[in-house]
């Protein structure tokens, strides 16, 4: 492992050591598969190596690397033929009527659910969940109106939850949630 540079900036080896898990995890959630995620990770560090002088503060390394991952991911997606955008219709908020608290989130189920989302939905969800980015930060980067980003985010979240929850036989989408801090199924009419 090489020593930090004279300017106190981390070296590329430092970045790999400290941020590999984060970069790969981020790339994996964006790409939705291991092969592409590995490729993105490698390209990210190669790009970082070339542009290391742009990193002003070591504390910003993680965010800087994530932004490289995002740029590479979007560039790759633009190169490819456009993929089906997925279900763009607004999703019923099924999660609002389902017990969610005790429902385990299986990793493979989450992976499969994310595979079914469009690239755009995966991107916005990864920014929200993985990066904990606010809607304002997301909107600022993609230069979209706040309301648009909110709706996009809400739609993607609903779709993801609906994919994660087991299929229900019949669900009333208009039923209000019961009082209390958990999502609970509405009571069946007597």
């Amino acid at each position: 492992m090489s020593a930090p540079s004279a300017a106190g900036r981390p070296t590329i080896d430092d970045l790999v050591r400290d941020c590999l898990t984060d970069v790969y995890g981020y790339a994996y959630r964006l790409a939705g598969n291991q092969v592409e995620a590995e490729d993105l990770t490698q390209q990210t560090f190669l790009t970082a190596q070339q542009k290391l002088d742009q990193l002003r503060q070591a504390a910003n390394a993680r965010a800087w690397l994530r932004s490289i991952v995002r740029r590479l991911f979007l560039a790759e997606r633009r190169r490819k033929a456009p993929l089906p955008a997925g279900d763009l219709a607004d999703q019923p908020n099924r999660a609002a009527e389902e017990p969610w608290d005790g429902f385990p989130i299986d990793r493979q189920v989450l992976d499969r659910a994310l595979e079914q989302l469009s690239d755009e939905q995966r991107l916005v969800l990864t920014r929200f969940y993985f990066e904990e980015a606010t809607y304002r930060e997301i909107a600022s980067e993609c230069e979209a109106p706040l309301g648009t980003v909110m709706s996009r985010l809400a739609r993607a979240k609903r779709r993801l939850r609906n994919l994660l929850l087991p299929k229900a036989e019949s669900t009333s989408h208009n039923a209000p949630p019961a009082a209390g801090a958990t999502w609970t199924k509405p009571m069946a009419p007597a």
Partner: protein
Amino acid sequence: MTDPRSQDRQPSPARPPAESELSDVALDDVLEACQPSGRELRDPELASIARRIAEQPQLIARLRATQAADRRLAEAFRAVEIPPGLKDRVLAALAAAAPGESAEPADVARPARRARAWAAALTLTAAAALLLAFFYWRSPSSYRADSIADYAQRALENGKPPFRPGAPADLELPPRLAGARIESWAPTTFLEREAMLLRLERNGVRATLILAPLRGPTIAGRLPRNVYTTGKLAIGVLPDRKQLCVLAVEGDATAYRRFVEGGAVARTPGPRSRVSRAAARLESC
């Protein structure tokens, strides 16, 4: 009790006058768009929405439930395992692509020139390897059993192209299916390639075979080996060096195996010539 979502989507006199671009956003969308920490609800632009939430216990409950679900999802999102050896691979790629560490003297000594030549050769090799890797991995899916099966199911259920009776000329079935009878065939697309759908029959069991060209010589090694069942169909990929062969058999995994194993009986081992293939077809008739 009224549904806060339907209440929110209808024009409501309770909605405050447009104080920002957010005043037109559905309340449900605002609840979803805020991080579970809740700090965004303290944003002055969301003040009226925050007031509305605070006034209605059902909205508070909804917000808390959304936040609880979001916290769990965020945790699940970040729980990603690194593939073994990734760090070494990344460091190796970086080392191969690393520029020279020190500034070059004006008069470069011979050993240094040799070292530079070696470095250039290594870089070129690494670039070639990266290029190969790029073509190797450049495929529309990760070729997992379920994704192949999904594609196959879609090709079978949605395509419904006009089938032509008999078999196309110069068709080469995978060796294990050489004894199956081809009822009809149709051109189609599969995994974004020109492909062929073949309706097969063997011992009373019907199946559909999708034949598509392999994009690269190494893809075959990454194809799934297990059989994926979808209720009515059992779908698997047959080993074949020349083409991608996806077989969908009506029935379960046992029917699939029976269908495939039927072809292994009385097969001549080793490479098959055109004559032996023709003989096999005659036998099957």
